[in-house]
């Protein structure tokens, strides 16, 4: 497997018995995340059998079906709870969860904050496209104020969640934000999220032209990638800009990196003591 690159590498990890084509629209960011995830796993040299991808429901949730790992496509919002069971049962496995913004922060919001608080050793990739893609473009907890969607035809009035702040406050060990425009950085964030102990979150800004872009004055998917390019700002640079001048910029980078042991490590240490191992 050593020197394969690009598409060749991707093919190494795709399921050959899966009926393609995939469900993603042209220009969807979710496919780029899939590529990044595969490169990260390959880069870390993880054995396929030792990786479990757990996905929620939404366009993002479909990602799991295409890759040749242990894959579980769960119920809407609940992926982290299934992942918690898998990680507690198989603490040596790399459990990676793929969720949408609606999936993780609306219906699954409670599970997200508690997975972070509990510090269970799974890595959560939150594919944030600011909208409910699969159900046809209703607003999500991250739809920016003023944006249009099927359920906010006059513009969103509610505030939106900042995924990074939410997970940081809830106690996650590792919190990062990347984008599908900046894939090399994204690869390294996913790798770091996987290797860091405890609960890790990587929020990934991933455009949905079909459901969000068309209603919000983007002319093409390419337009959305240009917007990402100009908005997403490395954390250090973002902090150096005076608050009044930040405008639409979104900070990206690693926000939290702690090395507290994951719940599963602590549990099995305690169990070993109970069983007289010490």
């Amino acid at each position: 497997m050593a020197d394969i690159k690009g598409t060749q590498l991707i093919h190494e990890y795709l399921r050959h018995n899966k009926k393609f084509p995939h469900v993603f629209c042209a220009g969807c960011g979710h496919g780029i995340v899939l590529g990044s995830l595969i490169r990260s796993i390959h880069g870390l040299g993880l054995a396929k059998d030792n990786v479990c991808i757990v996905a929620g429901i939404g366009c993002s949730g479909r990602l799991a079906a295409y890759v040749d790992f242990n894959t579980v496509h769960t119920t809407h919002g609940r992926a982290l709870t299934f992942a918690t069971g898998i990680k507690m049962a198989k603490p040596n496995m790399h459990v990676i969860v793929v969720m949408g913004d609606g999936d993780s922060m609306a219906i699954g919001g409670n599970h997200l904050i508690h997975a972070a608080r509990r510090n269970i050793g799974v890595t959560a990739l939150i594919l944030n496209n600011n909208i409910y893609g699969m159900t046809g473009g209703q607003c999500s907890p991250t739809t920016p104020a003023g944006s249009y969607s099927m359920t906010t035809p006059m513009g969103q009035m509610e505030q939106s969640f900042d995924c990074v702040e939410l997970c940081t406050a809830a106690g996650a060990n590792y919190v990062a934000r990347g984008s599908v425009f900046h894939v090399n950085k994204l690869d390294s964030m996913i790798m770091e999220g996987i290797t860091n102990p405890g609960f890790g979150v990587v929020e990934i800004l991933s455009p949905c032209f079909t459901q969000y872009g068309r209603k919000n004055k983007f002319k093409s998917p390419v337009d959305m990638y240009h917007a990402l390019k100009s908005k997403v700002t490395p954390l250090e640079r973002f902090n150096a800009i005076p608050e009044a001048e930040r405008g639409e910029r979104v900070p990206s980078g690693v926000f939290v990196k702690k090395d507290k042991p994951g719940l599963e490590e602590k549990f099995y240490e305690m169990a070993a003591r109970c069983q007289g191992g010490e």
Partner: protein
Amino acid sequence: MARPKKKHNKEIFALGNEAVVEGALLAGCNFYAGYPITPSSEIMEIMAQRLPTIPNGAFVQMEDEIGGLGAIIGASLAGRKALTATSGPGFSLMQENLGYGCITETPLVIVNVMRGGPSTGLPTSPAQGDVQQARWGTHGDHSIIVLSASNVQECLEMTIEAFNLAEKYRTPVILLIDEITAHTREKIIIPNEDEYEVFNRTLPTMPPEWYKPYEETVRGVPPMPAIGSGYRFHVTGLTHDVNGFPTSRPDEVREFNERLFRKIDQFLPDIQLVEEIDTEDAEVAVIAYGTVARSAELAVKQARALGVKAGLLKLKTLFPYPRKATEKLMYKAKAIIVPEMNMGQISREVKRVNNGQVSVRTINKVDGQIITPAEILKVLTRI
């Protein structure tokens, strides 16, 4: 399960809820996740103490019952024997994931210690109001196995049974207990290892490249490897083909759904557990389950003493509903009495089987009190 011989066994004085834990551990349960709720909480509390002391045991308290069921599904897919326990409101929250357990054919055991309802209802009073919820609570058409227990010893035995059926048929199994049995303390006998059977899911024997996770087998139950054991396949709540990938092709969808029913319907004699007391010559028969079956047993004895040819069919399996055992009673009896702590959730099944042949009388009580032997005796002696 053979009734254990006393002198070789450990006798303990236990609550119904404690007996559930003992049964689960004897059956090989090594994973618990859940959320506390009266009157089931002791099951979770004792599991929190016991599981860390057994090799490979694991326990997590989740943020809600949805998470509890999600976590045990994950653990079961990863090869564990997993349990959760709850009561009515928590059971309602579990319903979506219960359907996921059915369609993905994941062995699970869910104990529901029923309390009065609807809603938060009567948290510490007994009821049998979740019988049809256990059968039909989740969306979609599906088969399911629902068991019950009527005393503390049965809590232990039926929990072992629940794990065995779950593993054998790759399906969620629900054990319904009512608050009285859960909170009654009685002497029970812990069987020796050779006195009960433990069934484990069938593992695949073919090489991973040949394995099809949802392929038809003679028993209708495909072998099930654990996540991380070298067999990499897709698990999804979407209707899937034999390879585990989503499909909407009518022929594949039909075959899949029919197999889910068939794998259980083919083996009814193995699944439909009942106990018959004085039924051979019974002219009036009581059909009861849970704590009410205990009242009924005494009422039947008292009626016999008064010269009434009474009998009891105690249901240990509620679903698939034991039709054969019920029909057999109806050939002989003039009348059937169904006492329940609900407005008629099993008598509905009895009437369906009966189809107008004999008179079916119901005794329904929904005041948070048990149905007493005297109340059943009164009806028995008046028929």
